[in-house]
């Protein structure tokens, strides 16, 4: 029984991380109807920025509250900038082109980011590209056990990731449904041409959405990396794909859907791993996706949209 509870707990904690990445996918899809394949790789870049800044600060500074906050903010800011550049130069010129064109661009961008980071390069003593070797993320938050109920162990990292994730989700929900900018986002998402007629600066709204999604990804990436995962350039592809799967399961473009889908995926994976099938983990995630798409292509919360003839 406690075994089960532990798995549920771990699954939910893992799911919240997916959720943060999935929210970025969903937001971008919402406004642009584009699967931003490079989203996971932006996350990876964020993790490396976090890694570098934590190393630079040294162990003592970076593990203080202020230090940790700074690590997060720095990496989120860098990723926002990266997201802006990607949107401005790779996606915007293709906005009115066939969807496939943008999709191929996104795949190319993902490839470019993940494999550039496998190269090693430095400029005047400063490491520009880290190389393929996996590294352990600096221990900016020391592992502690906060709660033991029977056999169930709750660590501080789990609590932190769940709390941060929930706070960010709440914030996002507020932004989308309670603010002027959120209203503009929803309008652009529904029909960007008509949104322009309302005086909404469509390009700016889309750029800001990209920056926001990218920043979220960076935050999620660091939370993910802190939990004893090794940092390496291809981590974005794996996590990104999983998060995408989660977003689709929930109904892509739907904020709470992304969260629910992520939690489902986190739980399913945890159970597969927990009960001895760790080598099957990825297959199960994709199997889950295919099953959902076949039987309910619009996801759990999505709406069916019919093509006009």
């Amino acid at each position: 029984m406690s075994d089960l509870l532990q798995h549920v707990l771990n699954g939910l904690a893992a799911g919240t991380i997916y959720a943060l990445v999935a929210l970025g996918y969903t937001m971008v899809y919402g406004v642009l109807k584009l699967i931003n394949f490079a989203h996971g790789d932006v996350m990876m870049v964020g993790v490396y920025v976090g890694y570098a800044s934590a190393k630079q600060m040294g162990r003592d500074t970076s593990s203080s509250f202020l230090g940790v906050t700074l690590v997060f903010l720095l990496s989120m800011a860098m990723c926002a900038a990266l997201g802006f550049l990607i949107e401005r130069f790779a996606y915007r010129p293709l906005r009115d082109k066939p969807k496939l064109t943008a999709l191929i661009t996104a795949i190319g961008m993902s490839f470019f980011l993940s494999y550039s980071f496998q190269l090693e390069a430095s400029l005047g003593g400063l490491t520009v590209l880290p190389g393929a070797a996996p590294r352990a993320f600096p221990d900016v938050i020391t592992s502690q056990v906060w709660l033991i109920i029977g056999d169930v162990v709750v660590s501080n990292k789990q609590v932190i990731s769940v709390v941060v994730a929930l706070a960010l989700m709440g914030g996002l929900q507020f932004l989308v449904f309670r603010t002027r900018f959120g209203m503009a986002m929803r309008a652009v998402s529904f029909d960007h041409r008509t949104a322009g007629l309302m005086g909404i600066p469509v390009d700016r709204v889309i750029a800001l959405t990209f920056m926001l999604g990218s920043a979220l990804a960076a935050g999620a990436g660091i939370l993910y990396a802190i939990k004893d995962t090794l940092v390496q350039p291809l981590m974005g592809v794996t996590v990104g794909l999983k998060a995408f799967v989660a977003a689709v399961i929930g109904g892509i473009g739907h904020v709470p859907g992304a969260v629910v889908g992520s939690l489902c995926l986190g739980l399913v994976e945890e159970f597969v791993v927990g009960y001895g099938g760790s080598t099957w983990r990825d297959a199960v995630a994709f199997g889950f996706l295919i099953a959902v798409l076949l039987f309910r292509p619009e996801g759990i919360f999505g709406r069916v949209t019919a093509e006009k003839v």
Partner: protein
Amino acid sequence: MGGVIRGLLPFAVAVPVLAALQVLTADAPFLVILSLTVGVNIVLAVSLNIVNGMTGQFSIGHAGFMAVGAYVGGVLSKVTSEYGISFLPEVVSDQVLFALSLVVGGAVAALFGFVVGLPSLRLKGDYLAIVTLGFGEIIRVVVQNTELFGKALGLSGVPARTTLFSCWLVVVVVVVVAKRIHDSSHGRALLAIREDEIAAEAMGVNTTAYKVRSFVVASFFAGVAGGVFAHYQSIVAPSSFTYVKSMEVVVMIVAGGLGSTTGAIVAAVFLTLLPEGLRSVLLAVTGDGALAQKVEQIRMPLYGLLLVVLMLLRPQGLFGTRELWDMGPFRKKRAPSPPSPLSSSASPGAAPEVVR
């Protein structure tokens, strides 16, 4: 009967030419290996182009089908390597068994292609892409967990039976098949689906059947390519069939121009030879192995960048949907249409009186 002879004409030309090449290159193992890599990539690119370029579906899991063919073919050859067909000399017997394992590997891959093709009935564009990617990954994970396939270590000891002749014969087959499909009413149906699925359906094209068939044909040849690959590598490891391999093929057909078979061929040759060429040049000039190693690393980010730049500057790729033989001096002349008694009354110039 005359038709069949004409149908086999390309092979009548190809067989002696390839046989001659095989003999000529007997002393150049490096050249042979290079040609096999190029050949396998051509088969992969041309077959994927049937789905992505002609039918307009977007599959990014081609490596999965290649894996199926490689493993199934590899295991089959390993099992039969002890045996021979008694009335044939050993070399011939080996080649017959090899051909058999290629076909069986291809057929199993085609079966998988059928299964993957089914979602294409309900899914489009990006969703379909992700499903094919998922299937590719699932296949890899399944292989990694199967004792028969050597789990993560892979399958070793596959008899080395691929020759320049057999590999390029497969290339000729896939190109001929792709061209004949393209030029037939079936090819036109596939193109129609690419252009406008709803209109194609309304014009009596069974879009469901055609989409699945294009997946089946493409995955059959991917499986055969996998078999060819397995029989010259001798070791088949799951790491050869990742997402990266699928993307390599996608880059080839996008660069060549989605929908153009010759474009796919040219891009496959170029993108395979370029890094190999650079590597050997670097190795020869500097004598430094580390630098040559870099080429392999730089290749991947460059592929990504190439995709982005292509989409921004030349989304139609090298050839667009045209073929080499549609261009310049190769251009086919179209027979002038026969004059018809109806045409004069239908021409805008001779409009009848307006009925008011």
